[in-house]
């Protein structure tokens, strides 16, 4: 199973890389050539050369030879040079990716854990007053991530002053591995994490609830009750089986969560990839846009792979059957 998934992700990565190569060539008006034309005189000839190479070299060569140049450059880690920031795209990304991975990874883990737990409870107590949580959760899910972030920033940070306003850490601390800095980063991360969790939790909750309702009807749960197991143990029995589809869906959901959370960074001025992407888009900084897209896609694919391995470890059936 893992072999199959691995080849799927490899193929997906290749598609993403190729899309990146083909898109500027398919679009009307050849935006990259226009951009390079505009750049003449603004950047040093060496930077110009790096940018041009990262797009596949001179347009005079054939398409295939451009593609080979583009792939070779990628393999050597040349993502081109950012036009607005004047630095290699790779170096810029190395600084901002950890922030995004930390923020989104942490929020996703919290959201998944809390949502699944709440969903198991909701499924168990179906028909009780707790069911009124469902429309509320749906409402939160329907709010765009960035809008919820904006409202929370306004209410809890700028009016109530419960949280710091913008950025990832205070100006007064020096970045490094010391307690003062780490504590500060956690403090500044609280509100973005809370808003991502609130936006994404309903999906986990509802999925788990529906699976739990199906699971409670199974014979083994009835058996557990008949044996006289304490209620907590019975719930655990059912929940352990109900959680499997949620984990299988994790790979589908990660892409959606990342898409939403990128904009939360923007709202909170968080120094991650999302904020960078917006700046790049506004300035038509194509090398940077392409580099960010590739890095996001590859990171999401890695996260998917981890989710698949976890699933494999939890569900022994997948080890014998060739189920996807």
């Amino acid at each position, binding site marked *: 199973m893992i072999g199959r998934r691995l080849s799927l992700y490899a193929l997906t990565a290749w598609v993403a890389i190729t*899309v990146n190569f083909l*898109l500027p060539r398919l679009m009307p008006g050849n*935006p990259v050539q226009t951009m390079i034309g505009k750049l003449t005189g603004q950047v040093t000839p060496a930077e110009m050369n790096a940018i041009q190479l990262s797009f596949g070299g001179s347009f005079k060569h054939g398409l295939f030879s451009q593609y080979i140049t583009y792939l070779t450059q990628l393999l050597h880690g040349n993502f081109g040079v950012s036009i607005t920031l004047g630095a290699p795209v790779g170096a810029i990304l190395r600084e901002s990716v950890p922030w995004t991975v930390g923020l989104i990874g942490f929020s996703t883990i919290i959201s998944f854990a809390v949502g699944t737990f709440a969903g198991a409870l909701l499924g168990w107590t179906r028909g009780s007053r707790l069911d009124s949580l469902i429309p509320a959760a749906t409402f939160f899910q329907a709010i765009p991530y960035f809008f919820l972030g904006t409202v929370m920033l306004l209410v809890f940070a700028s009016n109530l002053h419960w949280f710091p306003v913008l950025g990832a850490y205070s100006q007064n601390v020096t970045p490094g591995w010391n307690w003062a800095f780490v504590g500060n980063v956690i403090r500044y991360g609280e509100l973005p994490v809370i808003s991502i969790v609130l936006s994404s939790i309903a999906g986990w909750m509802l999925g788990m609830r529906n699976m739990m309702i199906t699971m409670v009807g199974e014979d083994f749960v009835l058996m557990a009750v008949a044996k006289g197991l304490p209620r907590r143990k019975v719930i655990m029995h059912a929940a352990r089986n109900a959680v499997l589809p949620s984990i299988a869906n994790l790979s589908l959901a990660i892409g959606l969560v990342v898409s939403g959370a990128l904009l939360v960074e923007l709202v909170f001025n968080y120094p991650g990839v999302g904020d960078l992407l917006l700046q790049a888009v506004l300035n038509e900084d194509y090398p940077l846009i392409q580099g960010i897209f590739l890095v996001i896609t590859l990171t999401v694919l890695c996260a998917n792979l981890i989710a698949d391995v976890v699933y494999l470890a939890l569900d022994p059936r997948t080890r014998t059957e060739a189920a996807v």
Partner: protein
Amino acid sequence: MKILRLPKSPKVLLGLGIVGFFILLTIIGPWLAPYSPSATNFAANLTPSAHHWLGTTSLGQDIYSQLLVGARATMVVALVAGLVATVLSVTIGVAAGYLGGLPDDGLSLLSNVFLAIPGLPLLIVIDSYLPVNSRSNSFVIGLIISLTGWAWGARVLRAQTMSLRNRDFVEAARIIGEKRHRIMFTEIAPNLLPVLASSFLFTVLYSIGAYVTLAYIGLTSTAVWNWGTMLYWAQANNAPLSNEWYWFVPPGICIALVGTGLALVNFGIDEFINPRLRAAGITSRQRRKLGLPRRVRLGLTPVLRTTRAPRVNPAPAKLVSQ
């Protein structure tokens, strides 16, 4: 609609009401707007009043008019994207599920690849390369959004088609000698309808989110009024930090309401597909009236019927356990 009898739970009715209201707004919104949304001939930064229900922007535009006019572009793009994506997912999903074998492998691979690529970053990359005049075209934007949003529906439809393909009634039709397209359209298609409806609503929901997000980061034409461009201008003029809630909260609430409405209708469809979920749709009053236990405990997952059972025995309601 006989084919799709939605359970009449308050949740579903509420959802239908909300969606209906916003569809109406899409049609008549621009006529209801008291002023032109772009006209800048009012005082700037007015707070809500009888003349300007939601105040004015820092350019002196009427926010209430922007909200009403913006409904149309938002909903039209979402519908276009939803329709195109659904056509794509039906074609690819049903073909993959029905044909099986090599075509299935190829088509499934295609949809899995699209599922794995994160949608929004791809959208942003495509959109940033678009010429400016295409960015103001609702249909072009809708088309691009549908490209990133069809894969989920295709996967669900493929699974449903595969499970239908081997059912007895389809087998029977094949033995009778029905033509292949007849089996696909008259035997299988009606049974796909609930799944299809659910995936359509999900895609519309996704499209609204994607479109509003693109507009919010300024990747669609800022001359076309939609709820996302309203948020874009509000953010650009620092409305959130200067407490001008009446500028950025209304469009956000509208987006969330449409989304909630669609999701609630989707619950109804889910309960239609899987009646076990439906027990939750029965209110406690109905329960009491039917003489059902207040809460159904485990073991039996009953399909509850609110319609009166034929009076064969004196029991007030029928509890069918599966």
